[in-house]
């Protein structure tokens, strides 16, 4: 795996447990989650419609879309029923020093 696919997207200090943070990488919108100290990353756009999940409701390990209430498992991106038809893309994440890095494909 080429190391250059890892991109620094935020400072580790920018996000606290139970928070969601939206970041923009060129054309890509990514949501970062802090689940009890562990960072996860998914696409930030809901697969159902044009809504940013980072503005939604993080309920344990489930993110709920702020528009229609569609729900996804943060760790797997799995959509949890209507109105969601498609799962959410997830990204590998690592913390390097002070930085959060996401691996893009």
């Amino acid at each position: 795996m080429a190391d250059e696919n890892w991109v620094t997207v935020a400072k580790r200090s920018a996000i606290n447990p139970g928070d969601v943070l939206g970041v923009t990488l060129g054309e890509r919108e990514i949501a970062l989650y802090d689940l009890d100290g562990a960072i996860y990353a998914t696409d930030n756009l809901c697969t159902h419609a044009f809504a940013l999940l980072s503005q939604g409701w993080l309920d344990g390990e489930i993110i709920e879309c702020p528009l229609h209430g569609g729900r996804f498992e943060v760790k797997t991106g799995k959509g949890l029923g209507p109105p969601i038809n498609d799962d959410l893309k997830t990204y590998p994440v690592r913390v390097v020093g002070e930085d959060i890095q996401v691996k893009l494909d």
Partner: protein
Amino acid sequence: MNVAARHILIVGAGHAGGVAAATLRQTGFTGAITLIGGEAHPPYERPPLSKELLAGAIPVEKTYLRPLAFYTENGIAFRPGETAVAIDRAAQRVELANGDTVPYDALLLTLGARARRLALPGADHPRVLYLRDIVDSLALREHLNTGARIAVIGAGFIGLEAAAVARKHGAAVTVLEVQREPLQRVCAPEIGRFMATLHRRNGVNLRTGVAVVAIEEKGGALEIRTADGETVAADIVLAGIGAQPNVELAHAAGLAVEDGIVTDEFGRTSDPNVFAAGDVTRHFNPLLGRKLRLEAWQNAQNQAMAVAKVMAGGDRPHAEVPWFWTDQYDVNLQIAGAPKRWDDLVWRGGPDDKAFTVFAMQDGKPVAATTMNNGREMRPAREMIARGRAVDPARLADAKVKLQDLARET
């Protein structure tokens, strides 16, 4: 309740009809399903019609609930372009405009609503447009060009969303609203004023307290005349003055109708073999303790799901706090609750902030909430409204107190 039904016929292939058909299959209903709709498209969601689709930002297919193939793959006989003209309840069959009759064991009416038409001289001009379906949205889009003059009659969701898209496309937009503030059917005047300011700041000529009395073509342009004798010149007129439910079929069949097909919280009509869901219903909401009609995504989606589950043998009512949203410019406004009155507003943040939430209170209890770019507060807000317990207004107004914590306490 209708577990024994072998053939469920759904008349109306809008959002509610499509959701109901899919839900029946997901719930394990194995009988036959027929879905009849007057439009050429498979069931689709309407919110993008006055937003992303109107702006040309998405293809038509993106509005579809499911791709066309979904219906065949799931054994749903989808018959587009067909219209029901009569229900024979005694014989349990529906007659179509093409002369066919379709028998049913259980019937679901998801007939939707249509745009309310202007009733004034000149309203039948071909450049007086409405916005309700995909065809309307694509037709209106053709007119949203730089320099085009668009007059919008009605400052509700449809009119204001279309005005916002038109401004983004460089059109000159005038909005004429008969009430004193926009959005008076769904939110407090204070929120209406906030939205009025938003539109004026974006270059819309928004005029409130103005009644339109006539539309006339003059030298190729349309002239809109108001009750106070003023005129507005435009190339096209968009009328967004509400919707009326398509109740004629139900009424002619002798079902109970009161500005909407009357149903209980399970979607049952006055005939045990006939159910209804979506915009067309005047349904009982147990949380509010009254019947109401809603023209909204939530009702088309969640009420239809609930009613389909009942038809498949379930016993759970549909009981949710009504919820609406709109996207205009960079503002996402969400509204929960449909109170008839309130005695106080509690603001978390204010109109000059980047985001805020406003609660409408009645006897110390939250009865409605509006979030502006603050959708994450909507879920706890809805929970608080549903529970209907008194909340300390000082803590509610303190944006540093997390709403989810307050929701847990109350």
